[in-house]
């Protein structure tokens, strides 16, 4: 099975304060650590597990500057076979549509059975690239997948996660694209040997010219006008004091509200 996994490098903002920068169109990124987007890690693990079971190769694709190689090398270290980075100033200026078009152009030159992406990115939270890419490649797709079964090498049986803990079970013909939900598996860490081997694996870089992309065709369809801090109105009555005082006040409150 020939599998392509799309990886996105994102700033890790899960436990940090996020502020808007002076342009008002981006966040302050100086102190942030960059990492593989959470859901993409699960997509990569899904691909590696399928490769272990059915054979074949795993190709990684990412869009971004040279820094993105860290994410790709990490994926290679975990067991992917080769990586492709799509880099151009033109791509940076784009939106989700631009990214989907660029990746579709790169993939149109590759033989594949299955494309996996994360279901959502922790930065923009758009959930657009996967299904948009499938549409451009004219293959069926399923979003928010949390279970996969391959039937006779030609079909997929998947569970999609809907609201309220409901699952939708569906069947797709290969080639297909799935966007992978977090929690579907336990992403591995790379081994020392894996990290050593990754350095020798192919990582190809393509720009707009090399991809043969029509610049007009990847122009963004949306404009990010501004970013700003949401107004959060704290409704809570804050309980303050020393830890000891807090625990006493809190215990009294819990006792009353829990009806102890």
């Amino acid at each position, binding site marked *: 099975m020939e599998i392509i996994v799309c990886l996105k490098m994102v700033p890790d903002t899960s436990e940090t304060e996020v502020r808007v920068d002076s342009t008002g169109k981006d966040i302050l990124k100086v102190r942030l650590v960059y990492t593989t987007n959470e859901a993409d890690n699960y997509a990569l693990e899904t691909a590696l597990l399928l490769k272990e079971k059915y054979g074949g190769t795993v190709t990684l694709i990412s869009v971004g500057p040279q820094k993105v190689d860290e994410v790709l090398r990490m994926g290679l270290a975990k067991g992917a076979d080769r990586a492709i980075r799509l880099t151009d100033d033109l791509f940076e200026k784009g939106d989700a549509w631009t990214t989907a078009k660029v990746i579709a152009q790169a993939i149109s030159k590759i033989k594949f059975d299955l494309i996996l992406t994360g279901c959502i990115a922790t930065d923009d939270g758009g959930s657009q690239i996967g299904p*948009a890419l499938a549409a451009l490649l004219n293959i069926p797709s399923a979003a928010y997948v949390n279970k996969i079964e391959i039937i006779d090498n030609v079909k997929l049986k998947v569970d999609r996660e*809907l*609201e309220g803990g409901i699952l939708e079970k*569906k069947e797709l013909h290969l080639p297909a694209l799935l966007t992978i939900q*977090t*929690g579907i598996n336990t992403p591995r860490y790379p081994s020392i040997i894996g990290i050593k081997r990754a350095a020798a694996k192919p990582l190809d870089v393509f720009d707009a010219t090399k991809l043969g992309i029509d610049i007009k065709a990847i122009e963004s369809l949306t404009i*990010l006008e501004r970013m*700003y801090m949401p107004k959060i109105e704290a409704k809570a009555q804050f309980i303050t004091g020393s830890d000891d005082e807090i*625990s006493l006040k809190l215990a009294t409150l819990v006792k009353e509200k829990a009806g102890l």
Partner: protein
Amino acid sequence: MITLLIEHREGQIKDICFEMLTLANKIASAQKKEITSVILSDNCQPIADTIKSYCHKIICVEDNLLQNFNTQIYLPVLSNIIKEIKPTVTFIGHTGFGTDLAPYLASSLSIPLLTDTFDIELSSDKLLARRQMYGGKINADITSKSLPAIVTVRAGSFEKIMTSSALIPNLSASITKLPFNINPAIPEQSKFLEYGEVPTTGIDITKSDVLIAVGRGIKEQKNLSAIEKFAEDIGGALACTRPIIDAGWLPKDRQVGSSGKTVKPKLYIALGISGAFQHISGMKSAETIIAVNKDPEAPIFSVAHYGIVGDLLKILPLLANRIKEMKA
């Protein structure tokens, strides 16, 4: 023209549709536009009857293949409708259904898509959408370079039309039935099989009066046992956010939030939960909410009744002891 797609599951119209009807009516009255609802189903009439007073037109496409949602089958039908009637904007719920369909549809039509929006402004030539980024820590305004565009709307962003505080419309939609024609190869590409439910482990958190919910802030799995003990001491059950499920620390049926369960206990204690939108939507109706978090700006404090800014790993043992003393 404003179009919205009616989402239904097993014959039931999803709440998001009534919320989008509120949004559509708000824009329609300001911009003097008409609202067209689109129903794709095996049985359109009951759905049309339910919404006909809230929109100007209804387009129905009926076929057994449209009984259950399926992007690949919806796609040609919706593409044709959008190409035909050229709505300024098409609203689709940002749901398990909409997130599967909307990017596919917009991309195949090469038109702008704005996802997971919680507010929309439409002027004669411009569409502006407000949405969250970075897990709700930042808001962004995004505009569409051209129209028509597709917009997915976040659940819970608007009141339902029948309980709206604005004037409830009393329209009488005209119904147009369109034929269902589809390339017979498409249903073979992608087939709906059935709905399923997450396996249960015996404890139903929706039935518990007291819930102690944990999030990323508990740091390590080993901290769970003390919290579980505390939950027992106050007669409560343990619940959690999505990251705890993803880490495999608690079973899936303990998850509170949009992809988990909606709970309304008498007391909800949120420990180390920052309060992402997805979580808050599942617990905001609890009678009393107490939140402990080290970040004073955490969104959880916007729904909590009582807040403690501090290290839960320090406060919890002290609290557990106090409870024990009081019970003794």
